[in-house]
Structure formats: structure tokens, C-alpha cells
């Protein structure tokens, strides 16, 4: 029997890159495990706000991380249910290397009736040397909790 994580990979994987704004940025699905999701954003010069210094805008990184931890919360929920981001905090611990592909890894570390608590990091090659950390929450409709873990 296919696990829910495999279903998420099979169905959501191709879907992620077809979401219009994700497609505009070139975001792609990499892999999913029991509790985590990995996505990637290859570099584009359109992601910069300061081309002279190679400074990235936040928007592409937040789009990547929001999508990644959103998928992780669905994975933890154990069902494809509508959900909405309540809040998301991003800490930029260092700048990405020039023209780096950014990889996001996100997980849901706690699921309640209504709220998924998520965290994740973004790196440009070495997960032990991240460029950003995120923490956030997603809201689900309380009435619909299906077999996710607690």
C-alpha cells in the first residue's frame, strides 16, 4: 500500500511546480519523507533587489519556504485539506552564494485540531550551513482531522 508521504510526492510533487506563482519562479519538487518535504528554487537574476551587490529579495525565498512547510503540514495532516498560512517568520542567517540553487526542507513538528506548527530551513548546498530558518503556523478547518499524527 502506498504511504501518504508517497501519495504526497506522487500527486503534490508535479502539482507544486504548476501552481502559477511557483511556476513563474521556477520552483520544483525534490523529495518527501515521513515528516519532511524538500523543494528547490534554481537561481534567476529576477530574484535580486540589488543586482550590484547580489542581494536577494525575500519574496522568492518566502514563496519557496511557505510552499514547502505548507506541503509538510498537509503531509502531517494525512489528508489533502484546505489550509491557510497564519504566520511565517524568516531569519536570514547569511546571504546565498552567487547564483545558487536554494533548497528548502520543511517539517510539521506538531499538529493540533486546527493548527499545524512548522519549521524549515533553506540552504545552498549544505544543510548544516543554512541561509535561512523559518518557523510558522497553518490553520486547518477543525472539524476535519483525518489520520495524521498528534
Amino acid at each position, binding site marked *: 500500500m502506498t504511504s501518504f508521504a508517497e501519495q504526497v510526492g506522487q500527486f503534490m510533487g508535479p502539482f507544486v511546480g504548476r*501552481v502559477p506563482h511557483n511556476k513563474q519562479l521556477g520552483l520544483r519538487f525534490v523529495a518527501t519523507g515521513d515528516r519532511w518535504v524538500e523543494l528547490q528554487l534554481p537561481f534567476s537574476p529576477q530574484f535580486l533587489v540589488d543586482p550590484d551587490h547580489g542581494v536577494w529579495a*525575500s519574496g522568492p525565498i518566502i514563496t519557496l519556504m511557505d510552499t514547502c512547510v505548507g506541503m509538510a503540514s498537509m503531509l502531517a495532516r494525512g489528508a489533502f485539506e484546505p489550509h491557510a498560512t497564519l504566520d511565517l*517568520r524568516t531569519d536570514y542567517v547569511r546571504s546565498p552564494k552567487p547564483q545558487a540553487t536554494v533548497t528548502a526542507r520543511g517539517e510539521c513538528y506538531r499538529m493540533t485540531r486546527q493548527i499545524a506548527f512548522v519549521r524549515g530551513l533553506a540552504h545552498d548546498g549544505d544543510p548544516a550551513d543554512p541561509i535561512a530558518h523559518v518557523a510558522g503556523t497553518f490553520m486547518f478547518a477543525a472539524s476535519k482531522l483525518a489520520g495524521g499524527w498528534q
Partner: protein
Amino acid sequence: MTNPALATLLRGPAGRLDLLPYAALLDLAFERVDGELQLVMPFADTLIGSPGRLHGGAISGLLELAGLLTVIAAQPDGEALPRVRPVTVTVDFMREGAPQETRAAASITKLGRRVVNVHAQAWQADRARPITAAHINFVLDWPEK
């Protein structure tokens, strides 16, 4: 940064923000409304996340740029401008973003020489009903004298 050109541009009443590649990607323009710097993001199909809703990442990007440009516009005239980079960005999503024009503006809570604390809000038809808000701490790197 393309900062001097940007600072000059922001003194005008309105304009496009294509000097910033990511602002060009979002098709952003600015307007001065009663002195306040407002960013305008027209609706486009490419901004959609969930069906019929704007992607939260695009709205967050709009908020960060509203903060960044407000910080640049607040720098004293005639000085070399710093590199401005966000260190922490916290975004609250209050209402879904409908497929229509979105505006954003930011206010500076504290304008320091090294750190600037900013609050930014995005709204659609009704300013009194913000859809998304962000608290951003920017660090300024000044060029060597």
C-alpha cells in the same frame, strides 16, 4: 544598490520600479499618496497560489519591498546610501488575497543608522481591512568612507 537612481526616482510622484529585478517580476509601481509611499501590485495570473487566491509569498515580497523602499526614501539626501538587507521578516496573513490589485505601505518604527525596524501592511479595496502585515528588521551596511 542602484540606490542613487532609486532614491531620485522615489522623490517623484509615481513611477515603475523596474530598477529592482524582483519588483519588475511582480510588475510593481509606486505612488505618493498624501506624502505616503505606496506600492501597487496589479493582479496577474502568475501571482496565483491556491486557486483564486494570491500566493502568500508574492504578497510577502511586496511587503518587503514596501519596507525596503520606505527605508531608502528615509535616508538623508546627499549621502552615500547603505546596502539595506532584511535580517528577520515576520508575516501575518489575516485575509486571503483576492485576484485584484494589491497595495502596500510601510512605516518606520525606529530609524537607526545600523538597524531599522519597519511595519508594513498590504490591502486591497479597503485600506481598513489589511490582508497581510509584516514586521521587518533591516540592517544597513554603510560604504567605507
